[in-house]
């Protein structure tokens, strides 16, 4: 660009140049355009710049762009309408991310879902608020069972007859073995141990106590109870007390009262 006629210090040239840099001639306000044209009438350099700017403007404005196709138009319309639908999509994405995170499974979509939640303003805010609520839910305390709970359950199971010290079949086998052994002794007439002269009330009562209290009442106690006047002489309730748990609960006492009532009433099961 020729600069012989332009003085770098010429304020008029400076203003003209500034105006032409800032905007196309068509965009200049009337006052500025009038001043520029007036200056260009006496300044060939600025006049050349002005002419060049006009040519560029005309060239750019003549650049034609094809109109969008109907498909593009549809996409634009859909994009405008997407705001309402986007909320539902966002909610589904958050839900999917939640499930994926909770399942702790590796899923290539998790990264994409995380990115969406991080970049979508609506989801990011909802996610952040939800996390606060989730923390509160996770912090919900729950008490532990009171002391003695297990013993209380076992006591109720015993009273219901659902609990035995040993399997029922084993107890019956031991009782049968004891009866056979006693019968053999009596038949052989060793005379060491007197044969029972009455129905085995004591045995039944001890069995009754075993049912109620479980525990580790041994077979030998059953045999001893056959001979109340002999080796071991103790009432079935005393046997139960010896084998009772160290801190019997309410269930134990209820069962004990029942055993005593049964024994007093002659209930031999």
């Amino acid at each position: 660009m020729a600069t012989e006629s332009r003085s770098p210090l010429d304020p008029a040239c400076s203003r003209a140049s500034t105006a032409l840099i800032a905007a196309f001639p068509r965009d200049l306000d009337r006052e500025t355009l009038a001043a520029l044209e007036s200056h260009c009438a006496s300044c060939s350099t600025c006049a050349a710049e002005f002419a060049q700017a006009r040519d560029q403007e005309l060239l750019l404005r003549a650049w034609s762009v094809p109109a969008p196709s109907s498909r593009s138009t549809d996409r634009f319309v859909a994009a405008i309408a997407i705001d309402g639908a986007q909320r539902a999509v966002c909610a589904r994405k958050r839900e999917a991310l939640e499930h994926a995170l909770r399942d702790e499974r590796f899923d290539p979509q998790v990264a994409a879902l995380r990115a969406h939640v991080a970049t979508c303003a609506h989801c990011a805010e909802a996610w952040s608020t939800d996390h606060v609520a989730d923390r509160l839910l996770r912090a919900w305390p729950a008490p532990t069972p009171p002391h003695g709970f297990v013993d209380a359950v076992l006591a109720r199971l015993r009273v219901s007859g659902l609990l035995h010290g040993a399997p029922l079949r084993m107890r019956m086998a031991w009782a049968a073995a004891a009866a056979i052994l006693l019968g053999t002794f009596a038949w052989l007439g060793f005379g060491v141990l007197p044969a029972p002269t009455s129905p085995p009330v004591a045995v039944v009562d001890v069995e009754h106590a075993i049912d109620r209290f479980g525990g580790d009442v041994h077979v030998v106690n059953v045999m001893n109870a056959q001979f109340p006047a002999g080796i071991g002489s103790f009432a079935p309730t005393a046997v139960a007390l010896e084998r009772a748990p160290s801190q019997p609960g309410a269930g134990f006492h209820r069962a004990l009262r029942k055993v005593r009532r049964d024994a007093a009433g002659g209930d031999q099961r």
Partner: protein
Amino acid sequence: MHDVPEQIIERARAGDESAVRAIVEHLQVPMYQTVHRLIGGRLANDVEDVTQEIFLKVFRTLDRFDPRRGVRFTTWVYAYVKNHCFDLLKKRRLNAISLDAEASSTGDDMQPRFEPEGATLQPSDQMSAAEIDRLVRAAVDELPEDQRVAFVLREYQDLDYREIAQVMECSEGTVKSRLHRAREALRQRLRRLKV
């Protein structure tokens, strides 16, 4: 939570006290806490008794448990927990309605309604356990029963979708749907408290 070994269950079936004790000790805390979370809002004083009754039911019907059906023992027990708790709530609800029809205008559960909108509680990291319990309890108690069960079993007992579906006798998809609705409902209710 690891499951109860099969041999322990077999011995418990036979009435072996040590095996029964092992099972009760293993399950007492999760069962007690689940019962507390499901019904503690309405029947706080009955949680211990209810849990004991559930144990009795479990051991009375222990013969019905068959591991070959692909159900874990703990999952099988949770089905008892769910059924017993909601049968109880239903019974109490019906009794409450029949005894005092004027008590509840909606005929709904007799429980205090959730905090109204605009409550000014502001949580902080120093919230007491009692306060958290009050807030979360009020929100959870408002959930429908199916959503409440799914949420409690998933969030606090770590059951997976398949196990919850077995407890609730529905599909895994239904479980996911109930869980999602439960979480959304809880978050909304907690948001109202500016949590």
